[in-house]
Every structure is written in C-alpha cells, then in structure tokens.
C-alpha cells in the first residue's frame, strides 16, 4: 500500500494519488490533521527484529507496516491536528505526542518515505552546515554570497547593494524562495519580513536551471529571464548529477534544486528543498515526476530492517543524517 499524508489541496499528492489509482495501486490518502481520527497506531519499537513489527489501522483496515511499499509525506512538522474540543494544554500535549510518534515511525518504516523527516529540520542555507558545505565544495559547486537578517532595513540595503538581483527565502522554512526583481523586490522583502527572518543570496550572471529529483531519477528545466521554462537552450552542461548528490546527502527523495550555470561553466547552487513548488514546475516535468514517484513508492522491497538499513531503499542509518 502507498500511504499519502498530505493536505487535501496538495497538488503533488493529488497527482500521485490519481496516478497510483490509475496504475492499479493500493493507495490511501490521509490528511495530517485527521491522523488521530482516521488511524490507530500500534508499534512495538523493536530495534533488533528482522522484520519491523506493528501496524496501522486506517479507516478500520489493518495495515501491517511491512505491507507499506511507500509513504508520500507532505507533513509540515510539528503536526497540526484538529483538537478544538480539548483544553489548550491537553491539545498541545496530544499534538506533541502524536508528532513524536509519527516522526519516529516515518524514520523507521522499511519502505520508501518521500521525504523522511530529520530532527530539527533541514538547514535553510547550504552554507548553514559544515557537512553540506563540504559536500557542495566536493562537487565543485559554488555558493553565492548571502545575507541573513531580522532587519528589514538591512535586507533592503543588501538588495540594493547587489544591484537589485537577489534570491529571497524565509529562514527556518522549507518552501522555495523567490527571485527578486527591481520593480517590487523591496515590497516582497517587507511582506515576507512581517512573519519571518530572511536570507538573501546574490544571483550570479548565468543561466538558471532547476533540477527535480524523484527517487533516484532526475529531470531538469532551464529557466528564461521572465521565469518561464526555456526549450532548446544551449548550456555547457546540465547539473543533474550534482542535484541528485545534494538531494541524497540531505536524505531527500523528492527535491527541487536551483542552480546557476555561468558562461565559464561555473556552477552555483542557490537552494534545494524537499517541498518542490508545483505551480512553477513545467507540466511535462510534473507528469514525469509523478510517474517516477509512484513507481518509487510502489516498489516492493525487502521488509527486513537489516537489508533496508544499508540503504537498499534509501533508508540510511538514522544516525548518518545527524552529522
């Protein structure tokens, strides 16, 4: 069974659900806010058993964990649950306990989980972790200058200093950022900074390329100056391998990576996220991605923890992703 954990309006989940049904797959979609209403969790947390014991009851149907072939998780951690009838302190306790249980479960189930959560979340900036920075450097990828700030005035000053060409992203948020334009860049900074601290990155001259990772496969699109995808554009190379390597290093099986390829064949990475933006993804790539995701989530794998822990299904050691 493929388990989809996503809000009802999630476009990627909608397409994955539809494609899984079309191809005859056993698929179940649960909104994260309804996890407590629709599922019953029972998990003996065995660390040495060959096959992971335990099960979910989903809408009354028993689903042993080893019958899951994949989980498509679009959960924003911590979970938002519908607990309006509870006292606020009780609701907070239930939310934390359910979040902790599902977090652990999604890191443990021996099937593809797209994407597995990591403790503390992933860093906003590739430069924000020495391990990632090293990996970026090892692949010959450059990181543009950045400025992170809680001050609107500081952000606007930096935007101006970079000739009003910058990539803006909220700190501590997984969603992709936006490329700022001279005409409304300052307004966009102010709007975002009503809620978030931000990081700005200088955008080097060159061709924008977006690489999408789905399972172990990649697709790329070249972006024109107006933001639309370009066809037949000549590039020194497409950074497909680099995108896949970065995604794997972050434990991402579904990812969107933003690169700039300069005329001197230099490669800059501005961003990588496990929450690809559906609306900015060209339609033909959407279909490719969804097909690949469904194949990835449908593959029956060895349910043995001993097999999966060496990475046959992408489930690397939980500790590996901590360092």
């Amino acid at each position, binding site marked *: 069974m493929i388990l989809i954990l996503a809000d009802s309006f999630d476009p990627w989940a909608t397409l994955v659900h539809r494609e899984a049904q079309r191809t005859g797959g056993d698929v179940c979609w649960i909104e994260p806010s309804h996890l407590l209403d629709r599922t019953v969790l029972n998990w003996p947390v065995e660390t040495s058993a060959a096959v992971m014991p335990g099960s979910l009851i989903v809408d009354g149907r028993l689903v042993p964990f080893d019958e899951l072939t994949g989980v498509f998780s679009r959960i924003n951690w911590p979970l938002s649950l519908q607990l309006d009838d509870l006292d606020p302190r009780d609701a907070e306790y239930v939310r934390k306990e359910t979040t902790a249980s599902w977090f652990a479960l999604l890191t443990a189930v021996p099937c593809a989980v797209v994407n597995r959560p990591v403790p503390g979340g992933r*860093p906003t900036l590739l430069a924000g972790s020495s391990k990632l920075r090293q990996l970026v450097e090892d692949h010959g990828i450059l990181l543009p200058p950045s400025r992170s700030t809680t001050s609107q005035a500081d952000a606007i000053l930096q935007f101006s200093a970079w000739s009003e060409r910058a990539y803006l992203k909220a700190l501590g948020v997984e969603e992709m950022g936006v490329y700022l334009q001279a005409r409304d860049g300052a307004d966009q900074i102010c709007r975002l900074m009503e809620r978030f601290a931000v990081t700005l990155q200088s955008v080097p001259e060159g061709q924008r390329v977006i690489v999408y990772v789905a399972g172990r496969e990649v697709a790329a699109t070249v972006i024109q100056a107006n933001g639309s995808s370009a066809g037949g554009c000549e590039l020194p190379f497409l950074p497909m391998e680099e995108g896949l390597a970065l995604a794997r290093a972050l434990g991402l099986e579904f990812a969107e990576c933003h690169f700039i390829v300069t005329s001197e064949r230099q490669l800059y990475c501005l961003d990588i996220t496990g929450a690809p933006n559906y609306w900015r993804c060209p339609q033909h790539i959407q279909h490719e991605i969804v097909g690949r995701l469904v194949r990835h989530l449908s593959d029956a794998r060895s349910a043995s923890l001993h097999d999966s822990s060496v990475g046959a299904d992408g489930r690397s050691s939980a500790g590996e992703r901590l360092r």
Partner: protein
Amino acid sequence: MILLLGPMADQALANVCARLAARNADLMLVHPDAEMHDWNIAWSTESGRIGDRLRVGKRVVSVGDVTSAYLRGVGNPQGGTARERMLIASLWELVDGLPALVVNRRRASSTNNSKPYQQRLIAEFGFRVPKTLVTMVPEEARAFYEACNGRVIYKSVSAERSIVKLLKPEDLPRLDQIRFCPVQLQEMIPGVDIRVHTVGERLFATEVSSDTADYRYAGRENGRRTMRAIELRPELHARCLALTKGLGLIMSGIDLRRTPGGDYVCFEVNTSPGFTFFESYTGQRIGDAVADLLCKGSA
C-alpha cells in the same frame, strides 16, 4: 569570545556563566527577550562561510573571535509571536553555521524530541534499550502489560516533561483513553539509576538509588533518593562517550539503569542536561568542565 545563548534565569546557563566569569573569559550573553523590538541579528556568508562581522543585538562581533557557544532554553521556532519566532529561527540558523564549538547544535539537540526515534539511535551504539510499545490500541497495551508480568511504566513519547509512572492494575480501565493519543509503555527495568554527564571527553557518573519509578520526583511522592558520584568501568565509559559523539553532541546527560545482573540499560539521552541538580548533590564539577571546554573552544 564565548556566546551564551538563553535566559539567565536558567540555572545551568547561570552556573556556566559564573564559572566563565571566574575564569575571566570574554563572554557575550545573547537572549533577545529583554529588548525584543530593537534587537536584530544579521550575518553574511562568502563562499559558504560566515563572513567577518556578525551583528547580535546592538553589538557587532568579529566571527573569528567567537570560539564557542553554549545554548540553553533558546526556545522553539514554532512558538510565541512572529518576532520571537523570527529571532529564535535566526539564532538556530546562525549557530548551525558558526565555525566554533557549539554545545549543542540544533539537529543533534533535537533527537530526543521523539524518544522512540532516539531509542533506535541508542541501540545502534550497542546499548540495551527497554522493550517498548507505542500504541493507541488498549488491547495491545493490556497484552504488553501481561507479557511484562505487570511490570510496565508509561512516559511521554515526546520531550514533554512527564513523570515516569508504574502502570498499576487500577490504571487498566483508563487505557481506553489511549485511542485518542499515542502512549509509550516500557518494561520496568529493576535496578539502580545512573545519570552520566559527558562534557567533551570528560564524564561524570552519578548513581541514584530511589524507591520511586522517577527519582526526580521522589520528594513529591514521599519516596527515598540518595545520590553519589561513581566511576564507570572503562568499556562503559567509552561507550557513553561514543554515543554522545555519535549523536552529534558535545555534551549529554545519559540515563542508564544497572540491573541486579550487572547489565546496563539506556533509557534516553538528554541533549541539554540540567546538570546543576546533580552537581549540587554530589559536588561533581560539571559546570567547571563545561566552562573549561568552552574556554578551550574544541571538544
């Protein structure tokens, strides 16, 4: 310079601050609460590395001067007002990228937000862990209780502070409530508690004898509690240090229990231990070890 991040009302932070002050260390206290509205934080990166200047509050600091940072009770980027969330998210992002000793970094600090998640990590380092069930099924909870011969405790799944309690026969009818929230049950391990604090390569083990399921609340439950400093055998000593390092931590508080048969069972690893409770009972100089480590600037 040493950055101390968190509220000074925190006992562990205040303890370390006092020890550092006694060493005449160059300190900077970073907590935005007091001057929230005119408090800003900003830094730049060049070629993926934090640049020379770091603005924290009203001060501009040279990043090269920051040798270490100690965080306690910095907060949760999901809670509070937008401004609080903004500042806390920034602090976590900043310390993650600091080219300095950070006690402890965010990802490693977050492993005990989910105890079953951390338990799997602990087992990877060769520690025995208690038989555990996370469940919403009352019948399964009862079966676990029977399988453990009625020797079962319950405690929170998350990092939410909870009192570890024995599941008693009179609690069994209440198990129907777990249909609405997962509960964590564990086999009761008999024996003596040992809290191990690791600070870099140093280790402080405290043996705690108590007749209550959760020694922290022995006083509240009219129970008995005695504590004394002990030495661990070398193999266990090394395994505790390896576990701390393996979790990506510089400092930890490891909860062990020594069974009557001499086995050691690991319950969890506290990633931001409130060590002053143990220090005040035993005289172990844990705060001094933290201060020494921060002054040294490397683990």
